[in-house]
C-alpha cells in the first residue's frame, strides 16, 4: 500500500493540479472566439497611423454624409499631433470651422446673415443693440497727416463736460504716445470700465503747448437719431435714424418732440444707409406711422404666421405728411418700417430700391462668450409680401447724385426731391412740380421680381 502510495501520489497530485489549471482556463478556451473580437476592437481604439495616399477609395454608392463633429475632432486631433507648421490656436481654428460651416449652409449670397460672432464681435454687436458703451463719448477720426483727432465730442458726455473740443489732436493716452497707431487701437485704449479715469494729451491750435485732460469714463449713448428743421417757415422737419436699437425709440421720441416745438407740419424720415437692428424696435417705430393692423408678419419655420401688431401706446404724436427716404443700404428693420408705411399708404417712399433682407435672425449666445445669429424666420410686409432678395421699390425713384457727399446737404438731391414731394402733399406746391420724377405704379405696392 505504502509503496503504491508513493508512485501513485505523485502522478495523482500532478493530475489534480492539471485538472485545477484546466478548470481555471476552461472559460478562456471556450470564449476564445469572442476574445478575438475584443482584440480587434481594442486595436481600432489605438491611434490610427497616417495612411498613405493610395488607400482604396470607398465605394461611392456606400457614401454617407460625413458627421461634422466627429470628423472635426478627428481632424483636429490629427492636426495637433502631426501638423508641421506654425503653432495654431485650437479656438481660432474652431471659429474658422464654424464660420465655414455656416457659410456653406446658404452660400455667401443666399444667407450671409446666419453667421458666427467671436466674443469680440459679439460684444461690439451687443453694444450696438444696447445703444451704449462705456467711454468718454468723443467721436474720433484720422486727419490727412494720419493723426487721430476728436471729430466731435458728443453732447452730455464726459468728453464734452471735461472740455474736449472738436479738432483736438490726440497725442497720447495715459501718457503713452499713440503715434502710428490705428484709430481702432486708440479707441480701445480710451475705452474702459465705467468710473475709471483716462488721461488724454491733446494739441489744440489755440494753445501753444500740448495739454492733458483727465476724464472719467461713463456709460455713453450712441446717437441714433439726428434731426433738424429743414424749412422753418413751412414747418418741414427732418429726422434721420441710423439704426434700430434699444435707444432708438426714446431718441426718436425726443427728436420729434423737439421738432414739434418748432411748429412741425411735415416730416422727412431718412432711413438711408440704415442697416436695421432689433425687430421689436422696428415695430415700435413703425407703430408711430400706422393706425392699426400688423406692422410686420413673422413666418416661422413650418409656415406659421405671427403678425406683430401696432403698439398703440406709440401713438403719442400727431401724424404728419410723411416722405421716407430709402436706398439700397436700407435693410431689415428699415424695410419693415418703410414696407409698413408703403402698404398702409401713410407716407411716400423716395429713393432707390431697398436692400431686400426679409429674414429674421435669432442670436444665441454660447458659453465661451461668442454667439451665433441664425436665420429662424421670414418676415412679410403687412400685405404679405416677402421682400427677400427683392427689396422695396419706392414710390419715386431718385438716384443719389454723382457727387453726393454725406457731409454736405447741398449735394443731396434725394433730400431736395423729398422736400418737393412733401410740399406737394402739404399743398404748398402744385402737383405738376412732380412731373419730372419717375413715378412707379401709383398705388404703391410694387415689388418687382428683380431678385
Amino acid at each position: 500500500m505504502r509503496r503504491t502510495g508513493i508512485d501513485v501520489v505523485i502522478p495523482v497530485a500532478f493530475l489534480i493540479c492539471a485538472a485545477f489549471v484546466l478548470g481555471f482556463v476552461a472559460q478562456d478556451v471556450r470564449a476564445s472566439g469572442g476574445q478575438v473580437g475584443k482584440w480587434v476592437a481594442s486595436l481600432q481604439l489605438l491611434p490610427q497611423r497616417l495612411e498613405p495616399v493610395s488607400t482604396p477609395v470607398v465605394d461611392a454608392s456606400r457614401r454617407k454624409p460625413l458627421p461634422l463633429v466627429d470628423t472635426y475632432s478627428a481632424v483636429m486631433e490629427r492636426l495637433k499631433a502631426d501638423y508641421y507648421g506654425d503653432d495654431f490656436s485650437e479656438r481660432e481654428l474652431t471659429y474658422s470651422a464654424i464660420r465655414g460651416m455656416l457659410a456653406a449652409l446658404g452660400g455667401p449670397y443666399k444667407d450671409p446673415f446666419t453667421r458666427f460672432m467671436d466674443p469680440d464681435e459679439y460684444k461690439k454687436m451687443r453694444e450696438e443693440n444696447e445703444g451704449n458703451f462705456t467711454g468718454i463719448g468723443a467721436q474720433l477720426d484720422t486727419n490727412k497727416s494720419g493723426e487721430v483727432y476728436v471729430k466731435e465730442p458728443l453732447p452730455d458726455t464726459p468728453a464734452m463736460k471735461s472740455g474736449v473740443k472738436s479738432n483736438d489732436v490726440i497725442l497720447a493716452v495715459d501718457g503713452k504716445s499713440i503715434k502710428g497707431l490705428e484709430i481702432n487701437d486708440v479707441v480701445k485704449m480710451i475705452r474702459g470700465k465705467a468710473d475709471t479715469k483716462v488721461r488724454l494729451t491733446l494739441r489744440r491750435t489755440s494753445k501753444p503747448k500740448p495739454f492733458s485732460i483727465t476724464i472719467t469714463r461713463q456709460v455713453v449713448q450712441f446717437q441714433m437719431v439726428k434731426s433738424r428743421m429743414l424749412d422753418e417757415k413751412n414747418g418741414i422737419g427732418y429726422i434721420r435714424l441710423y439704426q434700430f436699437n434699444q435707444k432708438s425709440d426714446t431718441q426718436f421720441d425726443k427728436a420729434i418732440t423737439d421738432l414739434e416745438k418748432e411748429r412741425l407740419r411735415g416730416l422727412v424720415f431718412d432711413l438711408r444707409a440704415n442697416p436695421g437692428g432689433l425687430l421689436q424696435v422696428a415695430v415700435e417705430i413703425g407703430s408711430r406711422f400706422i393706425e392699426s393692423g400688423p406692422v410686420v408678419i413673422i413666418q416661422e419655420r413650418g409656415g406659421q404666421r405671427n403678425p406683430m401688431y401696432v403698439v398703440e401706446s406709440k401713438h403719442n404724436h400727431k401724424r404728419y405728411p410723411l416722405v421716407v427716404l430709402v436706398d439700397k443700404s436700407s435693410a431689415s428693420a428699415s424695410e419693415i418700417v418703410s414696407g409698413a408705411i408703403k402698404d398702409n399708404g401713410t407716407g411716400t417712399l423716395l429713393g432707390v430700391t431697398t436692400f431686400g433682407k426679409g429674414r429674421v435672425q435669432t442670436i444665441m449666445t454660447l458659453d465661451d462668450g461668442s454667439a451665433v445669429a441664425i436665420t429662424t424666420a421670414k418676415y412679410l410686409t403687412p400685405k404679405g409680401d416677402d421682400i427677400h432678395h427683392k427689396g422695396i421699390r419706392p414710390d419715386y425713384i431718385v438716384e443719389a447724385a454723382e457727387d453726393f457727399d454725406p457731409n454736405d446737404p447741398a449735394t443731396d438731391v434725394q433730400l431736395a426731391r423729398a422736400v418737393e414731394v412733401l410740399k406737394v402733399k402739404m399743398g404748398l406746391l402744385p402737383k405738376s412740380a412732380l412731373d419730372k420724377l419717375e413715378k412707379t405704379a401709383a398705388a404703391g405696392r410694387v415689388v418687382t421680381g428683380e431678385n
Partner: protein
Amino acid sequence: MRSFHRIGIGCLVGLCFAAGYAARLSVDVRERAAAEVREKTISTQGARIASAGLEGAAGIDFRPIETLYSVLTNVREHYVEQLSSDNESQMTYGALRAMLSSLGDSNTRFLDPTQSRIVRDAVSGKFHGIGAVLGIRKVRTGDITDEHLIVLSVISTGPADRAGLKPGDDIVSVDGKQILPFNPFQKAEKYLSEERKKNTKQNQLRKWLDTEEKRIESGMPVSEAEIALITEDGKTRELSVRRAGVKSEIKIKVAAESFGVEPVTSKFLDSGAAGYVRINCFVPETGSRFAEALSELRAKGARGMVLDLRKLSGGETDSVLNVARHLLPGRKLGVLLQSRGRRCAINVPDAPADQVWDGRISVLVDSGTVRFPELLAASLKEQKRARLVGEQTCGDNSHSSVMSLSDGSAVMMKTGVLLSSMGVSFAKGVKPDVRVAYSGDGSNQLSEAVKALGEGGARQ
C-alpha cells in the same frame, strides 16, 4: 481495491477541475466589477485625458468643440429651413475647408471626393487635368496678400508639357478670368477703411468699389482655378501666363484630359558609351522599370548614366526609395523632420549587387525638379555619387500626408519637411555643380551632363 483507487483518483481529479473552474469564476466576477469601475471613469474622462496630453500643462480646455457642437445643434433646431442631408455634408465640407485654409498653408487643405480621387490617381500613375503641378505662392504688397498660381512642374509628355507650359510660369488668368486671391475683398476693405480715415468723396469711393466688384465678379478664386486645371474635364483652357524674362503675357491653349505616362524612358547614347534614363513620374512601377532600364544599358556596355530628373515632382516615399535602392543601396536618402521635433531617417533599402548601378552618374535638374526628386538629387550630390547639371531646383521641401475620410473626401496636411541626407534644408533649392541654362530643346544640358560624366568625381 485498485479499481476503487482509480475511481477515487478520478473523482478527485474531477473535483479539482470543478474547484479550478469555480476559482476562476470568482476571480472573473471580482475583475469584472473592478473593470466596470474603471470603465466608468474612463468614459467620462477619456476626451479630457486625450486632449490634456497633447496640450500639455497649459490647462484642460475642451470648449472649442462644445462651441461647434452647440452652433450645430442650434442650426439644426432653429434654422428657417429644415436641413437636408446635402446641407449637412456641405456644412461639414465648409467647416473643414475653412478650418484648414485658415492655417494659411497651401499644403494643408480639404479635398472633396473628386479632388481626393485625383490625388490618389496621380500616385498610381493616372493623371488628370492639364498635367501640371501647381503651387500657390503668397505675394505681399503692403497689407494686401495676393496669392499667385504657379506652375511648379509639368508632367513630362502631358498636355501642359506639350503645350509649352514651363516650371515657374505664373498663371494670370484662365479662360480670360483673372485669378483672384483667397480673399478677393482685401482691396475693397482697404478702400472702405481708408474712406473712414480720409472722408473720400462718396462717388469716388463708389467708382473704386464698382471696379473692384467687376474685377471680383469676372475673376476666379485661386483655389477654384487650381481645381479647374487639375480636374479631368475634356475642356480646352486658355491660360495667360507671366514668365520670367518675358515682358508680355504669354497665351497658351491647353487641353485638360485624363492621361497616363510611361514612368521611365531610356536610351543608349553613342557618344561616350553612356546611358540616358529619364524618370517621368514616381509611381509604384517606377522602381522596377528603372531596374530594367539599368540592366539594359549595362548590357549595352554603358559605363556612365545621365539621370534626367527635370520637370519631375512629388511621388510617394516608397516609389522614390525603389529607385534610390539602385543608386544608394543601404544609405540614407534624407531626413524627415516632423512636428514636435521628431526626426525620422529615410533609409534606402539594399538591392542585390547586380542591380546596383556602380558607374558614374550625372543628374539633370531644373526648377521643375520638386520635392522628392530634389531630395534624391541633393543626396546623390552630398554622397559624391553624382554631379548635378542644369539649373537650381524648385526648393519645395514640404512633406504632406493624406488622411482619408469615410465618404471619399480627404484631408491633406503638411506633416513635415525633408532634409538632405546630411540634414541640410533645401528650401532654397539645390544648386547644380554645372550650371547650364535650358535653351532650345534642352539638348545643351544633356551634352553638358554627358561631359560631366567624363570629368569624374562621380564614382564611389
